[in-house]
């Protein structure tokens, strides 16, 4: 009886153990199942590189190039802003700040990570958007720039916390050796600590970018959602994520538009898959070396 009970429990444990694999596969299968239906009507090339996204015109034009470029522009802008600030913050918190200050600053960064994206989007909508409009004298503040600033803010907790872990993993002896040779603290950080933590820093940046590409609600609320090929940061853009979230509610199940939104999901899934894979590989590379 006891043997039988244990057998059942251990079976459940094993099934739960591989549940993550099952769910990743299920997500992939169900995206493919609906998304691939689109390509009976529309060519892959036409879908990925079509310059016009008019899903409800007759006939519909389902080219997602403007959406891909919208995502790329906003992601690029957010990366340019968040990486230097995030890296600097991680260095300050991890290496320089005295103990009591470190705890306060860490709590602040963690608090940022805990605020839901819808709340940040709302605050961005009522504060950042009018500000951008006023400073740059634009007809609207709903622009790629506002989106980039907002997203940069949302990527920072990821970058800071993972990079700080990477800094912590650098053995104490490295720092002591450097200081003993007469190097200043900054020289030690720059020449010894940062190079030793480099793969962790790369992973932190990658995961931050992954967060930015996938972010949906805040970006939908403040980028203006115009599906045009972006020409400047002061224009409205529309990202892939925002398109899915904004339009899925209005599609007819089984229409080309419906399938196209799932196909965008496949593109997003593929991008984040690759980004996460790279991040994980660079983290593991570090483990293998130290």
């Amino acid at each position, binding site marked *: 009886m006891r043997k039988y009970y244990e057998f059942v429990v251990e079976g459940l444990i094993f099934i739960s153990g591989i549940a993550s694999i099952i769910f990743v596969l299920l997500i992939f299968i169900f995206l493919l199942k609906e998304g691939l239906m689109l390509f009976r009507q529309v060519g892959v090339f036409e879908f990925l590189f079509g310059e016009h996204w008019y899903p409800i015109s007759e006939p519909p034009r389902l080219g997602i190039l403007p959406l891909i470029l919208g995502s790329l522009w906003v992601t690029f802008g957010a990366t340019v802003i968040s990486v230097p600030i995030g890296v600097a913050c991680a260095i300050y918190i991890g290496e320089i700040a005295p103990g009591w200050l470190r705890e306060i600053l860490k709590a602040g960064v963690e608090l940022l990570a805990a605020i839901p994206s819808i*709340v940040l989007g709302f605050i961005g909508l009522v504060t950042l958007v009018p500000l951008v409009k006023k400073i740059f004298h634009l007809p609207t503040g709903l622009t790629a720039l506002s989106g980039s600033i907002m997203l940069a803010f949302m990527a920072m907790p990821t970058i800071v916390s993972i990079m700080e872990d990477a800094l912590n993993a650098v053995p104490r002896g490295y720092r002591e050796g450097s200081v003993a040779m007469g190097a200043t603290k900054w020289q030690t950080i720059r020449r010894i600590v940062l190079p030793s933590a480099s793969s962790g820093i790369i992973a932190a940046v990658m995961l931050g970018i992954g967060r930015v590409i996938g972010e949906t609600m805040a970006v939908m609320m403040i980028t203006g959602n115009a599906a045009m090929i972006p020409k400047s940061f002061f224009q409205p853009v529309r990202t892939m994520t925002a398109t899915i979230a904004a339009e899925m509610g209005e599609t007819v199940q089984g229409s080309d538009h419906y399938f196209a939104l799932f196909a965008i999901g496949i593109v997003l899934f593929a991008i984040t898959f690759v980004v996460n894979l790279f991040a994980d590989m660079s983290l593991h590379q570090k483990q293998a070396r130290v």
Partner: protein
Amino acid sequence: MKLGNAKLEEKVVFFFLFLSTLMIVVPVVLVIAVIISRGSSVLNWEFLTAMPRSGMRAGGIFPAIVGTFYLVAGTLIFALPIGIFSAIYLSEYSKRNLLTRIIELAIVNLAGVPSVVYGLFGLGLFVVFLKFGASILAGSLTLAVMVLPVIITASREALQSVPKTFREVSYSLGATKWQTIRHAVLPHALPGILTGAILSLSRAAGETAPILFTVAAFYLPRLPKSVFDQAMALPYHLYVLSTQVPNVRLELQYGTALVLVGLIVGANLIAVVIRSYFRAKKQW
């Protein structure tokens, strides 16, 4: 002279690093301060317990609070058992082999899948394929898959921090592997597991994109009666108020944001307290 330069350089660099840190932390404090100061003006008993009125421009947010509560409860019911068992497998059973590596990659990936893609997945699998319709059940299942990596990672860490000797003593007394896990390992990992559960709870409460097409009701001035009903939810309600309904008083939106952030920050604080309480009590 050279040393003086290095010292000066250090001072300048450290100042800029400090400035960068402030550029993150100060806005966070400002955001929280604005939400509290403007949200608290509408926060009263009626706001928390009344139905919305006049096309959501007046009244309370009670159904959204209840909906979020149901969703979070449903999420934990599905995600906790699978997550904890999965962590037990990884910590106690798995060997360093290819399967384990693939599981780890799958977890990393689940954690990185965009929230709106979870929404598509939930729509495809739970709403359409399994015919649950847009319902609390479909939404909870979708959110459960989303928070799974959070629970697994936290629980696995908690289990692995239980000293090896605990297991060895239990084996030496003749206990089986499952008895050992059940009585000598799990109880000591409980605080860590609880922390993970609370973190995933706050994540599930705050997400909007996964519930957009799987559960959320635009305006539903009554409480859901079964798990197959649609429901309102706090994050979606905030989205609707701030972008879909014209001429809503900003204060109502701040109030909704305050309730949502209050719930989540409150949950996180509880997690911190649990963690530090048990860390102080821990004897090994």
